[in-house]
């Protein structure tokens, strides 16, 4: 009997697992995909919000595509219970789906602070497609928008909100913006840049309540005057969708604990993406990396293993890039390693900032910030990722970089980094573009 793969979640991890299973088994197994929403890419929602793409562009798994991949879709449903000993999953309509192996890739949901008025009118998380539609309908040129939260995800929508003509205020509880992406110096540059663009920013402020006053919203702050707005965007964090797994027997810490093959402690149950606590590439420690690149790599590794391969995952590299009005901001790896030897260079007039963090002669993390016209003349961004990814020993080129931190390319090439990278693959063979998976496999 063909293996029955059950995939919970149609996001990046789930869909990459499906295409990778098909890369190896050419359609020989049964795949069922359960997804609450019709699958789309959350990563590209900001571009739909900013009206640079149309809604159909966000969808990732058309019926024709799923048919070509021989996937049985079960959409509009959520998993509510896992019976691991019986090897079945119960859905919210009481359907029971048996499996031979199971992938939990149920992603995250956006959260709101537990304050009075948090669920009132004109307040949206910008997490789902439906919420984006609501916000698009609510914003006109001149609409006063307050965004609560200044994290990476929140920043991916700033350009879109400004292009819609919103007048924007950002409130952040941490002492700096982008607290989990860049350091104080970088945050100061970004904040200064945004303020020059007419964005009002307050950091270190705590929202106590949200009220409706005269058809608008009033945000009450601790020890500060209130802020009024027409529309509020909640960008106060995400949590992995794990509550439904209580009592399932799975070991869960920050996420479902998985080994280097993305197996959980329960036989035939895998986890990938935001719900999985896997391994950090640089430090080797257990980590949840709720970012798109990790979900993609997890999906490919777990798909290979579910298809009978034996692929160990080296670990995921934390990496993020976002731009706000042409100021590019990126960070990699252990960009905030406490006590690490660091090289920093700052030119606040351009503005430009970069910080390299070392573990001996190996680059363990980096922060890089600069105007798009400067960053894209060299793409040190990719090279820094390559240096952190390979963990190359820079040897004599480390003092060179200390003296010349703008000259990453010379050190990168002279350390023969490309030579180290070229043999590296994630699933063990050259990549096949996802749309061609079945065509190539059946050739």
């Amino acid at each position: 009997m063909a293996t029955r793969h059950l995939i919970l979640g149609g996001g990046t991890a789930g869909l990459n697992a499906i295409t990778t299973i098909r890369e190896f088994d050419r359609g020989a197994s049964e795949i069922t995909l359960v997804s609450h929403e019709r699958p789309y890419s959350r990563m590209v929602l900001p571009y739909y919000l900013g009206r640079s793409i149309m809604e159909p562009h966000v969808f990732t798994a058309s019926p024709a595509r799923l048919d070509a991949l021989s996937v049985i879709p079960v959409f509009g449903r959520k998993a509510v219970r896992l019976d691991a000993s019986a090897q079945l999953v119960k859905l919210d309509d009481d359907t029971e789906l048996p499996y031979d192996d199971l992938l939990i890739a149920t992603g995250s949901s956006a959260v709101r602070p537990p304050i009075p008025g948090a669920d009132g009118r004109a307040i949206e998380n910008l997490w789902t497609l439906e919420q984006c539609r609501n916000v698009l309908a609510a914003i006109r040129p001149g609409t006063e928008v307050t965004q609560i939260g200044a994290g990476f995800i929140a920043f991916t929508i700033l350009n879109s909100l400004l292009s819609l003509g919103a007048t924007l205020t950002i409130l952040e509880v941490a002492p700096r913006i982008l607290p989990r992406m860049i350091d104080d110096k970088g945050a100061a540059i970004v904040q200064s840049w945004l303020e020059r663009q007419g964005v009002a920013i307050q950091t270190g402020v705590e929202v106590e309540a949200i009220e409706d006053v005269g058809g608008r919203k009033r945000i009450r702050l601790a020890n500060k005057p209130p802020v009024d707005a027409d529309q509020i965007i909640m960008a106060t964090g995400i949590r992995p969708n794990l509550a439904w797994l209580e009592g399932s027997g799975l070991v869960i810490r920050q996420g479902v604990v998985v080994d280097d093959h993305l197996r959980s402690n329960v036989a035939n149950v895998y986890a990938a993406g935001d719900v999985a606590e896997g391994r950090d590439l640089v430090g080797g420690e257990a980590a949840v990396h709720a970012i798109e690149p990790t979900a993609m790599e997890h999906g490919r590794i777990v798909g290979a293993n579910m298809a009978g391969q034996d692929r160990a995952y080296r670990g995921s590299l934390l990496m993020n890039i976002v731009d706000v009005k042409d100021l590019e901001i990126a960070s990699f790896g252990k960009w905030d390693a406490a006590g690490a030897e660091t090289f920093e260079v700052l030119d606040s007039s351009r503005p430009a900032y970069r910080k390299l963090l070392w573990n001996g002669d190996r680059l363990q993390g980096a922060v890089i910030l600069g105007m798009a016209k400067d960053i894209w003349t060299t793409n040190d961004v990719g090279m820094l990722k390559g240096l952190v990814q390979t963990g190359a020993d820079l040897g004599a080129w480390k003092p060179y970089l200390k003296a010349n931190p703008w000259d990453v390319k010379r050190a990168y090439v002279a350390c023969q980094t490309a030579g180290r990278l070229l043999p590296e693959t994630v699933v063990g063979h050259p990549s096949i573009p996802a749309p061609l998976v079945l065509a190539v496999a059946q050739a």
Partner: protein
Amino acid sequence: MKVLQITPSRCTGCMRCELACSYEQTGMFQPSLSVIRVSPFEAHTSYSPYTCFQCAEGWCMTACPVEAITISPVGAKVVEHDRCVGCKLCTIACPYGTVFYNADTHKAFKCDLCGGAPACAQACPTAAIEYVEAETADWQGPFAAERGRPLVTPLAAAGV
């Protein structure tokens, strides 16, 4: 598959490849829009072009959340202009630093081998860039390591 084979010792730093590439890709002679970039690898006289290796792993391709990067008939990883939204995941996924972002068009751009007639190889007067049947390799690494030695030995000797 034919690839751009680069022989750094032949490069004179003339930059014709950058002009040819940007003109072929954008209609403008503008080196900042070229996807092949020439750099010196010691003080002034050792140059090499550097561009996408068309690697087997295709980090850019697998990174794209909307499958905007695919493989062309000549085997190059190509950004589909209409599909790309400009999220820049590919630019940080590529560990070679050869995927770029155009802040005016809001699209990623990279070497697509000009559909099989690479302009840089045609323009190169010394055959430092050749479009030949070969296994892609770290063309510049050993050259840069050797030629760059005078830049680093004094630092190491000084115990910096």
